[in-house]
């Protein structure tokens, strides 16, 4: 349908446009200041003072980053985009620094330093000298791995956002989203979202700094573990030994009472969480547009579970196949639905769809 010519959009005035741009830039700069200082500023006077300060802090951060990147061989124009053909050392001062490496982003926390080597094509290795680095890693999709080396500990990325801290010989890893494998002293541990690991088990692991608590990229190998925008994901923590034979391991109970399980097929990276049928169904519904194949797989999983959501899942699978133009499969599924659930909630609709196809 075409635009209605008789209802044109009244454009913003140049003045309003400029005012919006200024306000937004100030607000975002103020965010950065708020994050850096964590200082609650309440009065209007303090607000504007904060904006001034944050602008100055932002400028100082850029200058410091350029100064730090220069000896490592990266070009000054990069402004936080590491050219990682050559090893690049990034050392943050009193404020954190954000560096983009290929399609991934590293946030080097205050008073931390890392050396970044490689690129997306050859694999990226981040060597953590000290402090904390928060990594947001784009899906690897068969590309060479993204690894963080902290002393004797090596963290291989399977999924997406995690922080590695090193203080002397104590290394800790916190996963915010996705899955990573931690290899230390010949042992391998798979960490999922909110999973924590420390080389010194007596020491509690600190949470990821608030700045980094954002949703990031998905990894195609573990679609069922990714968070969605609409529904907060349940968290699970699973650990296993690499050398041990595949077996079920006890899982820590999370506050929501849900747990995860390790697949007994010996595939180290793949961890399948246990979802309720309803959660899986809702997740599948959300995936319909972006990943229809994954949605169909989830619907099938719910259906095979035989629970109260099985009928809806079967119908949803049929409908989705129909929308994808796979009418033969859809017909078969609709027929099965009518056979199994002749008085189901969607029986009338299934009959109608089936008749339409005949």
């Amino acid at each position, binding site marked *: 349908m075409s635009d209605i010519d008789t209802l044109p959009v009244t454009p913003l005035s140049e003045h309003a446009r400029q005012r919006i741009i200024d306000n937004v830039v100030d607000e975002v700069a103020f965010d950065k200041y708020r994050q850096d200082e964590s200082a609650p500023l309440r009065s209007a006077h303090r607000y504007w003072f904060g904006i001034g300060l944050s602008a100055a802090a932002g400028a100082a951060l*850029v200058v410091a980053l350029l100064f730090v990147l220069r000896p490592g061989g990266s070009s000054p124009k990069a402004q936080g985009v590491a050219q990682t053909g050559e090893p690049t050392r990034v050392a943050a001062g009193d404020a954190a620094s954000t560096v*983009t490496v290929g399609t991934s982003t590293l946030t080097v926390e205050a008073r931390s330093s890392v050396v970044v080597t490689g690129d997306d094509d050859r694999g990226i290795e981040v060597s953590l000298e000290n402090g904390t680095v928060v990594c947001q890693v784009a899906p690897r999709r068969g590309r060479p791995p993204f690894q963080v080396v902290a002393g004797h500990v090596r963290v291989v990325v399977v999924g997406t956002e995690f922080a590695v801290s090193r203080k002397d010989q104590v290394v800790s890893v916190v996963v915010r989203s996705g899955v990573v494998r931690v290899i230390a002293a010949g042992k391998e541990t798979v960490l999922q979202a909110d999973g924590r690991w420390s080389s010194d088990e007596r020491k509690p692991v600190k949470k990821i700094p608030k700045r980094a608590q*954002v949703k*990031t990229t998905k990894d195609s190998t573990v679609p069922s573990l990714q968070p969605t925008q609409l529904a907060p994901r349940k968290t699970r923590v699973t650990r296993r030994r690499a050398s041990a034979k595949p077996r079920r391991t006890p899982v820590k109970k999370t506050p929501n009472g849900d747990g995860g399980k390790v697949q007994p097929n010996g595939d180290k990276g793949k961890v399948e969480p246990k979802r309720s049928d309803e959660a899986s169904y809702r997740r599948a519904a959300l995936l319909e547009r972006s990943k229809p194949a994954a949605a169909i797989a989830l619907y099938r999983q719910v259906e095979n579970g035989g629970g109260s959501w099985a009928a809806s899942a079967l119908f949803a699978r049929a409908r989705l196949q129909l929308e994808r133009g796979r009418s033969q499969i859809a017909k078969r599924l609709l027929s099965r639905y009518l056979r199994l659930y002749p008085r189901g909630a969607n029986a009338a609709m299934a009959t109608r769809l089936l008749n339409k196809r005949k």
Partner: protein
Amino acid sequence: MTEQTLAAQCVAGDERAQRRFIDEHIDYIHRVLFRILGSNHVVEDLVQDTLIQVLRSLRTFRGQAKLRTWIARITVRVAYAHLKRGRVQTVPLELLPDISAGDPGAEARLAARNAGRRMYALLDEIDPKQRIAFVLHAIDGRTVREVAQMTGSNLIATKSRIRRTKSKLRRDSVVSAFLREAGI
């Protein structure tokens, strides 16, 4: 400069990059909001809110969808939140520029303006989700699939919202005639 590079620079706090980014997307955001709300009365504030949300969330942009689609989703969410709060104060007089005397098409455009004003007044009474789906499809000319993407709904729900809104609007004879003339 690619979108990704510009986005990375914005995330790194580069003010010039942020200004450029805003400049590139402000008109698009404004258009979507204007279509949904029908006037510039509150749109300015909402454009600002949307841009702040976009810049704050930019580091989570995964590049799986087009940047525009991602921005559109945030825009729709901001508009929805506004409508949901019930602060709809549409001033549809802005729907057309002032009509000067002696303009040959003035009468027709005046009628269209009146119908547009009526339509947005009726839309104020309609569920925000239905309203958004309808205006993006019927008024802004987007496909149902696009609207579904923008609103984060599935195709069936989107179609149903559009259909329901249309049928509600058609109860008003003036708006019905206007929609018929516009081919909606």
